[in-house]
């Protein structure tokens, strides 16, 4: 592997907003933008972000307007916060070229070349090759012969390849997210690419939908639907639309969370009258096993990646705070101490970080805690943050907030320096959950 240093420094630091640049305005794009990208925003704040300069040569051939492959690759790489995209003009480079890397070396550590060619059978062949300009080394290339409908996915996979070759960590651009939209009185549960594009509705309803949670395999979504005029947890096979209610107990059933091995789930039930954390079966049925024993509120439980512990919210100390306890129950240890409202815990897949929402002076703000040190950083400029969810590589957090009075989804790097607003379907957008790496 080449030695382009990755962003080792993940210590969160409150970033100062410096500039807002749109992809269109950034001058990085040789190709015209597809209309869907008009609402895409990348905000870079703070100084000293270590970003790897990467040049993308104009791809030979052409993509359909609704899936501009090099533009999607550029946007992916930029959104990660790890790369600085370098304008690349001229030449007629593609994946077969052996470019003179000398001139490129001045400006970029890596050069991506490629092409998108329409095949005789109507498919498109997306090809690329990545060069280490410093070592004049071929970092390999791939060909993705895909249907037009899968061009976006092919572009995301190219970005994943570049990310992994240059940082050593897996890319998340070809992963999927789930979120909920409210448009008028209509609620929809969507599955979309990690950049928010290509959304497809898995469920539509006239009653609210909240708390989607991907199964560890990425094949199913658990969520809470109010279609029965009460909160009920469903598990939904997204490929075929088959779904089953798995928690329909008397009272409210909410806050589903999967064990890492998918053998069991956590849920908040109200069988005792108050909201308590239970272990239930993802197949439904059986007897729920109560894990918390208070007379107040215990909810929003999530497993740690090793499945050994759970983090959850409890008001046992007089205000909602985040606690940790053994996954099978036992004594709980308080994790958050600042302020009197800390909710919605999310643990990074690498187990190093806790993201949560704190109420600070009347505003609801995304916080990132390094678990080993207990250091906390407030990483947003917004004041209605909700429901953080980590990318499967632990490098980004997606969350819901309000922008200009509308609910929207955003991503941030853990240090708060790079933020993006996701493209989305119309309406208010909320309740994001980031899916796993494809298996």
């Amino acid at each position, binding site marked *: 592997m080449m030695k382009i240093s990755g962003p080792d420094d993940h210590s969160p630091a409150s970033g100062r907003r410096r500039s807002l640049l749109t992809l269109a305005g950034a001058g990085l794009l040789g190709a015209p933008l597809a209309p869907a990208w008009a609402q895409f925003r990348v905000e870079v704040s703070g100084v000293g972000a270590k970003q790897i300069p990467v040049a993308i040569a104009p791809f030979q051939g052409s993509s359909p307007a609704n899936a501009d492959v090099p533009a999607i690759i550029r946007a992916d790489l930029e959104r990660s916060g790890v790369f600085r995209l370098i304008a690349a003009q001229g030449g007629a480079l593609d994946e077969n070229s052996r470019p003179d890397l000398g001139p490129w070396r001045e400006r970029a550590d890596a050069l991506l070349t490629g092409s998108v060619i329409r095949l005789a059978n109507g498919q498109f062949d997306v090809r690329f090759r990545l060069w280490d300009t410093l070592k004049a080394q071929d970092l390999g290339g*791939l060909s993705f*012969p895909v249907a037009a409908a899968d061009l976006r996915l092919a572009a995301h996979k190219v970005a994943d390849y570049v990310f992994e070759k240059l940082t050593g960590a897996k890319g998340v651009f070809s992963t999927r997210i789930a979120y909920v939209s409210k448009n008028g009185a209509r609620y929809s549960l969507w599955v979309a690419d990690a950049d928010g594009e290509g959304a497809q509705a898995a469920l539509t309803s006239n009653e609210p939908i*909240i708390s989607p949670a991907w199964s560890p395999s990425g094949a199913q979504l658990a969520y809470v639907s109010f279609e029965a005029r009460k909160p009920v947890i469903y598990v939904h096979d997204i490929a075929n639309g088959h779904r089953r209610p798995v928690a329909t107990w008397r009272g409210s059933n909410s806050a589903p969370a999967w064990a890492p091995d998918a053998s069991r789930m956590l849920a908040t039930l109200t069988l005792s009258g108050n909201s308590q954390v239970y272990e239930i079966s993802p197949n439904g049925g059986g007897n729920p096993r109560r894990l918390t024993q208070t007379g107040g509120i215990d909810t929003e439980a999530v497993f740690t990646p090793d499945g050994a512990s759970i983090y959850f919210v409890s008001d046992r100390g007089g205000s909602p705070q985040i606690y940790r306890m053994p996954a099978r129950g036992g004594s709980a240890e308080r994790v958050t101490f600042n302020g009197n409202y800390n909710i919605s815990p999310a643990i990074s897949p690498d187990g190093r970080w806790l993201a949560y929402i704190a109420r600070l002076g009347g505003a609801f703000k995304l916080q990132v805690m390094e678990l080993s040190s207990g250091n906390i950083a407030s990483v947003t400029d917004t004041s209605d943050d909700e429901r953080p969810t980590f990318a499967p590589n632990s490098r980004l957090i997606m969350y819901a907030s309000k922008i200009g009075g509308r609910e929207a989804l955003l991503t941030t790097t853990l240090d708060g320096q790079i933020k993006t607003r996701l493209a989305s379907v119309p309406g208010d957008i909320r309740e994001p959950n980031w899916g796993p790496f494809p298996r």
Partner: protein
Amino acid sequence: MQVSNAFESQARRLTRLAAVATLSAVLAACGSSVKLEDAAPVADRSSNGLAGSNGSAGANGVGQRGISGVQADAFKAGQAPANVERVVYFDFDSYAVRPEFNGLIDGHAKFLNGNSQRRVNLEGHTDERGGREYNLALGQKRAEAVRRALAVSGVSDSQLEAVSFGKEKPAAQGSGEEAWAQNRRVELTYR
């Protein structure tokens, strides 16, 4: 171009192996991609030149993105007793039924006691501030307070279910105390 490291060399062996015929199965796990040889010209641009990966996209990896959408059924509420209000309002950060709603509780208790086959859901709601799941738990506290008040009035437990909508179904839109006061409530919905 020289093979740059062991990984590349292994990948090249894989490519050659793939060319024999097992390619689509081997590559299904990594998204139906085909490894390009080192930057020697890739002469054949036709789909046949890509050794059997052609057409596999729909069935493997890259093409597995279909979503089958579902429409949830609508719920129909049952007939409520006439001449009795159906909404109990709560103070900020409070989960106690105010005395002014004693008459409302009595009215529903009489109806339920006289119609033992009828059931009612006590739907707790909060204002918009805070997280969705935590507000669901707070709404449950309000619903539970109304359930207890009806139980004290002799209504059978089997006729009552306390549930919560949290902040999901505000009665009044907008922010500010006027809207919030209308949203901190329990609605009695007959099934």
